[in-house]
């Protein structure tokens, strides 16, 4: 049985842990509001961009001369996976969920004998993937020292991807990030960005196709728009991630604080009981000592 002093120490240590988790929760809540706002603001832009591109894709009649970013290389042997996670831990299953999703996808690719390349964005994905997939990782990008995600950050990643694509280093590019649904629910998603995939969207009738007038012609617009779209999709992923991270951290820290509270209660009861037991024991000793006299 632990001594009174041990119990006392444990209670203080749990209490200080609780203080930390509570503080982290507050900080995450404050950051969440901003990140959520940013993510929601960026959605409109990326949705519109996607809409325009899908419309363009459907109006192109001569697929053979269409830009390669749209139609892809003919083969689908080489895959590039861009796994985007946070730079910090202590946010529940957030990072792990994204990595899990990407691992499933990569395993499938490797089983089918495809070539695999990985770019990790955020240090946590590198930490989690390097053990098994270390030899496939060609680049790790981290924005650890940055407070806010900027458009130029997304451009940096997308430029890298695009130049790799033109060098024929991969055929298909998929990005992994976590979609921010609500504070308590974040969904890891995979999204193919090269070539543009649109079948799902049209099937669900989410986008209505309109006959547009184009100025200049479709080809030129696409050539100009596709690189922008990739950077937009990546920016969207980064911003959704930022919001998801704070949401996940908030609920994780909320849970942790609650667990710490439960633990403190239990330990306090334990502590009081053993203190009482000590008192009772001393009393019995005194009484029995007095009786023998």
């Amino acid at each position: 049985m632990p001594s009174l002093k041990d119990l006392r120490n444990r209670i203080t240590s749990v209490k200080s842990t609780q203080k930390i988790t509570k503080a982290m929760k507050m900080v995450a809540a404050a950051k969440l509001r901003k990140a959520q706002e940013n993510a929601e603001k960026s959605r409109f832009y990326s949705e519109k961009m996607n809409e325009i591109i899908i419309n363009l894709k459907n109006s192109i009649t001569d697929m053979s001369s269409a830009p390669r970013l749209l139609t892809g290389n003919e083969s689908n042997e080489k895959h590039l996976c861009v796994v985007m996670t946070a730079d910090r831990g202590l946010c529940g299953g957030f990072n792990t969920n994204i990595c899990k999703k990407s691992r499933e996808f990569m395993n499938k690719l490797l089983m089918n004998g495809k070539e695999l390349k990985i770019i990790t964005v955020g240090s946590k994905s590198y930490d989690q993937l390097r053990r098994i997939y270390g030899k496939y990782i060609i680049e790790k990008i981290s924005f650890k020292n940055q407070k806010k995600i900027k458009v130029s950050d997304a451009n940096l990643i997308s430029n890298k991807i695009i130049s790799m694509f033109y060098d024929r280093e991969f055929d298909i590019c998929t990005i992994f990030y976590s979609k921010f649904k609500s504070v308590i629910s974040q969904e890891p998603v995979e999204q193919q960005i090269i070539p543009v995939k649109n079948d799902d969207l049209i099937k669900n009738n989410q986008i209505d196709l309109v006959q547009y007038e184009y100025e200049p012609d479709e080809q030129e617009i696409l050539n100009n728009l596709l690189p922008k779209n990739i950077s937009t999709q990546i920016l969207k992923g980064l911003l959704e991630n930022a919001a998801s991270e704070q949401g996940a951290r908030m609920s994780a820290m909320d849970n942790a604080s609650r667990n710490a509270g439960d633990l403190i209660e239990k330990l306090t009861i334990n502590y009081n009981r053993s203190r009482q037991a000590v008192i009772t024991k001393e009393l019995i000793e005194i009484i029995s000592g007095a009786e023998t006299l």
Partner: protein
Amino acid sequence: MEVNLVAPDKIVFSAKDISMVSVPGIEGNMGIMDKHIPIITFLRPGIIKVEGKEKNNFFVISGVIDFKDNKLNILSDSIYETNKIDSKKLTELKEEAINKINKNKLNDQDVYLTSTLINELDNFNFR
């Protein structure tokens, strides 16, 4: 018609009941009014004028226009309200443009766009 000016990180301007928007299209200035046919086109550097109950002007460097169902969406990663832009920002943008034109090997279109940008910046008089 409804007008939305959107940057990647925020919605810069949004309003209904706009009577006309004139934009610097890549193949010439364009005035878009109610019930225009659906159109997608690019912007060259210049001023977007939005005319509704109030007049609002915006300076853009590049972007895409999408008009459909009486809704005009302008997507741009470089859009500034003209009354919020200051001379410091102007010189910054100009230096960037001059660097771009000097350093990189640009194709004809990029050269045209960048020199238009420099011209526009020179003529910018806080409209």
